[in-house]
């Protein structure tokens, strides 16, 4: 167990290191970051540009710049936003709770809907119910989530006027559409995954044994099958977090939800590069930690993992 933990932690550190390199390199993708930051260079002399480059530290060796950036990042200093005229970290800290709220509620909704639906489809395998839920799931996976968001907005906000069009000012009412939009894809995918893992579990020997020793069907499902279905569900939650964070970028933009997703998209469109670096790093870090957490939960749930 200790060895497994150590190895997994080491892996995570390597990945985090890679992430910081990738996030840092965003600066240099278009060549000299000086020109990207200046944007409009009319009226600037070569000396002005040089002075700006020097002030930003872009004239130093790349490795020095990287370690300098990393050192600051570790202390929570992600530079200054030219757009907001404020400390990047401060803005992110303000926006973070909105994103956390949106993703966590969506994650819960996803599990609450997809788990019963997937188990139900598996138990009714081959019936109309099964095909119906599978078609529904496939449909959900095929519709782009931002389109679902727009359709919901058109129906419930614009035409029926039941819910606010955008923003985060009306409590739960504001959350309804963004959360449904964000969880749509996950519900569809998880229903399929849970159905197939339930089917797999139902085919195992220990289920036959349980039946053979005269357990009621109810007991077989609840005591023997469902517990084992939980294992793939935990992995699924890890994957979900990744797609939810990606989805938050789009959903927050559609519904003007004032979280990190909208912040990132605005930073990208406004070429606010240091803010982009900060957001990319933090998004990726959240994802890495979530997966780490999932892996450790896994070892608790499934002792077989520890032995590998």
């Amino acid at each position, binding site marked *: 167990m200790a060895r497994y933990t150590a190895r997994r932690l080491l*892996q995570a550190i*390597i*990945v985090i290191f*890679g*992430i910081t390199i*990738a996030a840092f390199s*965003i600066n240099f*993708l*278009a060549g000299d970051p000086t020109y*990207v930051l200046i944007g409009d260079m009319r009226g600037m002399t070569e000396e002005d540009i040089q002075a700006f480059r020097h002030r930003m530290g872009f004239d130093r060796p790349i490795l020095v710049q990287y370690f300098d950036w990393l050192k600051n990042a570790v202390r929570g200093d992600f530079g200054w936003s030219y757009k907001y005229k404020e400390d990047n970290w401060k803005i992110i800290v303000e926006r973070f709770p909105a994103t956390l709220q949106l993703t966590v509620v969506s994650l819960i909704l996803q599990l609450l809907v997809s788990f019963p639906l997937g188990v139900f489809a598996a138990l009714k*395998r081959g019936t109309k119910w099964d095909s119906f839920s599978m078609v529904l799931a*496939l*449909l959900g*996976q*095929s*519709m*782009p989530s*931002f*389109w679902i968001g*727009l*359709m919901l*907005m*058109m129906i419930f906000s*614009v035409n029926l006027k039941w819910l606010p069009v955008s923003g985060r000012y009306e409590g739960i009412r504001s959350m309804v559409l963004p959360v449904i939009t964000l969880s749509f894809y996950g519900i569809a995918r998880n229903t399929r995954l849970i159905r*197939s893992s339930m*089917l*797999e579990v139902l*085919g195992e020997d220990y289920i036959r044994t349980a039946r053979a020793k005269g357990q009621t069907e109810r007991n077989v499902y609840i005591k023997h099958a469902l517990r084992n279905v939980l294992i793939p569900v935990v992995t699924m939650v890890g994957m979900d977090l*990744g*797609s939810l*964070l*990606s989805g938050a*970028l*789009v959903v927050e*933009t*559609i519904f003007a939800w004032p979280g990190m997703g909208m912040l*990132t*998209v605005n930073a*990208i*469109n406004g*070429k606010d*590069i240091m803010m*982009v670096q900060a*957001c*990319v790093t933090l*998004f*990726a870090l959240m*994802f*890495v930690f979530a*997966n780490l957490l999932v892996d450790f939960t896994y070892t608790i749930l499934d002792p077989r993992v520890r032995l590998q």
Partner: protein
Amino acid sequence: MMEPSNNTTKSEKHAVEIKKPKKSSNSRFLYDLKKSTKAKFAIIVIFIVSLFAILAPILTPYDPVTTDLMARLKPPVPFRYSVVSHPLGTDALGRDIWARIVYGARVSLLVGITSVIISGCIGVTLGLIAGYFGGIVDDIIMRIADILLAFPFILLMLAVLAVIGPGLGNMILVLGLTGWVSYARVVRGEVLSLREKEFVESARSLGASNMRIIFKHILPNVVNSVIVVASFAVASTIITEATLSFLGLGVKPTTPTWGMMLSEGREYIRQAWWLTTLPGLAIGITVLGINLLGDWLRDVFDPRTLL
């Protein structure tokens, strides 16, 4: 379903010809196709969308970018104020929606297919190498894969595109270079078990080089899985392309794409429902078709998933 041994015997001329079962894999394939509603629907959708892309100029008299301010915001035909000459209506600049949807299919398919080919080639090669050689090579490739997976995908694409600039070529490149992870993982997983099989051992004992074993003996056995992964990848790439265009970082604004149509229609969501509904349906139906094809292929290639 193709028997793994068929491929290897075909490729090895000096090996003994094994008598094939009477029913060839082709006829089995067609038989499955005829039986499955899923597959028929998928093929029809893909066929129609491809027709859109190829025959766009024949299918509509309009140019998808020519504006006509006299005919702005016309609704689709059965609705009030609609005109017969614009069966699916027009957008805020009077551009014909049908023309834009038909031409939009070109971008979706082009981006979907080319970037999947790029990422497929990279992913399969890396997966073969990682799985076959193992050790440190495997470690390095899989860690890079982990790092790529650790980024919310859209975020990565957005950040890169924002800096190198939007455009068709750049988008294909970025999608191609970042999408290889799923192939690499699937292929690696299969190679790990394949490399222990007898046919690999016998090839090795006959003196085959590593390259020959990888490409002649192992590759044909992973093709089925790669096709399945690729078909799902085309579907998700089309959605990603639409999302990027929607967020304003897709191809250039003059090229009609479904994602861009949605992003433009969003501003008229109160007046013109068709601007957001129709392109979205085009994306949804196309992606559904491709997903169904992938689903069906997986069932055919790996009957175990049917259970």
